[in-house]
């Protein structure tokens, strides 16, 4: 099946370089919709947040007690990881300035924020008034305003979906979801 003169592992290694470029080009093309990258400030901000996590972890685990190598304390392992995070994020603060892999927040990020609000709303209302009404509202908001469906299909799909959920979760699987009916 495979060519005996050419081990399958070795050859693609070099040809892969060319291909990698091609693939990257294609991926870039596919992600045209991707918002522009956000620049050095957000890179540094992200690295500083990571650094802060590391510092927090280090301080917290130091307080837990490191113990000795013969008798490791509860804080030894998290302390070791935190130190690695601190070192790597510090490197990232210095070297990551020119990276282009962050995305700028745009107007459409507001859609995500709005979606998030509905999620929190569902979680907050669920124990109070059951899952039916919050689910219906969430479906409708996502379809009508976040997905820009028509009024009619938004209403039909959200009612249909929640009814299907009711049948599936409550009647068939008999999962004790908090509910009105």
């Amino acid at each position, binding site marked *: 099946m495979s060519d005996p003169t050419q081990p399958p592992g070795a050859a693609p290694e070099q040809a892969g370089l060319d291909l990698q470029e091609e693939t990257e080009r294609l991926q870039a093309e596919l992600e045209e919709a991707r918002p522009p990258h956000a620049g050095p400030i957000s890179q540094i901000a992200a690295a500083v947040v990571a650094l802060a996590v590391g510092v927090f972890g280090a301080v917290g685990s130091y307080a837990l007690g490191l113990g000795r*190598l013969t008798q490791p304390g509860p804080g030894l392992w998290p302390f070791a990881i935190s130190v690695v995070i601190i070192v790597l994020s510090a490197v990232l603060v210095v070297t990551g300035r020119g990276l282009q892999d962050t995305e700028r927040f745009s107007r459409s990020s507001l859609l995500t924020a709005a979606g998030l609000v509905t999620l929190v709303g569902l979680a907050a209302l669920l124990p109070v008034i059951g899952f039916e009404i919050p689910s219906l509202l*969430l479906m409708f908001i996502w379809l009508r305003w976040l997905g820009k469906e028509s009024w009619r299909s938004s209403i039909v799909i959200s009612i249909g979906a929640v009814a299907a959920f009711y049948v599936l979760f409550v009647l068939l699987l008999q999962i004790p979801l908090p509910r009105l009916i």
Partner: protein
Amino acid sequence: MDISPILDGFGVVLEPTNLLYCLIGVIIGMLIGVLPGLGPGATIAILLPITYGIGPVSAIIMLAGIFYGAQYGGTITSVLLRLPGEASSVVTVFDGFALAKQGKAGTALGIAAIGSFIGGTVSIIGLTLVAPVVAGFALDFGPPEYAALGILGVLLISSIGNGNKLKAIIAACVGLLIATVGRDTFTGAERFTFGSLNLAEGIDFIPIAMGLFGLSEILYNLEERHNQVHAPAKVGNVWPSRKDLGQASGAIGRGSLIGFVLGVLPGGGAVLSSLAAYALEKRRAKQPERFGKGAVEGVAAPETANNAAATSSFIPLLTLGIPANATMALMFGALLIQGIQPGPQLVTEHPDVFWGVINSMYIGNILLLIMSIPMVGVFVRILRVRPAIMAPITVLITLLGAYTVRNQVYDIFLVIAFGVLGYLMKKFGFEPGPLVLAFVLGSMIESSARQGLLIFGGDPTGFVTRPISGTIFALILAVAAWPLIRKALPRKTSVERVEEKIK
């Protein structure tokens, strides 16, 4: 080799419930492979709560079906829409879409399906032969070896995945840190719990996976990324002609081998192997210029390889207990939920799980072949479903599903919190995959490292002087130093690249 457990495994698969879950799994896999936006990782994460309700064998059979089914489905969008459903189908786009433009979309899909089937099947046979041997070898591993293996796995996945390596490793370390939240098993001390009773139990795997893989992807896609609907190309006859098959047969054979070998390597997996298989075919071709303009081999090779790799990536999980990629990390978590510790003991202690899952893949691949050749029209029609409709339905499944695990609203909030974390990570160029993987392995690495220290009487050099763990640590160093080594040799590669172009 004693084959009776293998045969018993077929008995397990052929039980009607398991067959049903296999069918459900591969159908879901095909569907989400076809639908843009949600990958197999996200889907498996969202469906994790279901696995509580069904037995371990059925659960893993279904999740595995989703995983390799998605490889089949991803082909359809690559060929018809020039939109790779999965990263591993990216190279299929070059020749697949070119064939579709020539009115030969059916041929491309047919060849891809046959290649996928052969690649998958070859890989399952390989898995059947290799896995018990590796597991037997790994039975001698002690805590130091496991600590080293775990660290190597985390490092490999962080450094081979796409995106910035430094960020990936930082994300992985954060995952290790999150894994320490809760009561320390050795001393009983509460770590990072801030006096919260919920946190004292530790953070559960399901909300983390659902949030970071599932919800974060939905939130990310909300920014009007995939909202345009595409009209798919017409699909004609999907049965490839004998000439096409003959042309593709070499590519399918070589793709199977490449996929199997690269799939075993942690972090290698489906993406790398599809690239490698395509590159190999292009190099071997008598007329390489045909590639990119509708060469049948250009579809056959990557599609065969990505399926073979998807299958063989089960080997490290089932034999060493080390997940080879982010999706395998979810399988690892799903097994743990069922009270089964993946590792070398799996084949002897839970032969039903081990062989049941492996053998279910034969059935699954046959089902997928049927779905992708005679029934491909059904799935092409699904391409017309708008992502705007899928998004809220998946959100509801995610949130309500998270609640059902322990009937606690706290879990919903946890999923939302990790969903937001995952969304922000993606916005700032951090991959959530390494974090989840490191979280899954975190407590294993910590307890093995601490047990190791106890064995060595507090002397950390013991990790390096034991032959196997020493070798693994040497590998860790090599992986960590690799980017620096490559940076030191930039000239050589660019010369090679020029040579490549001259050819």
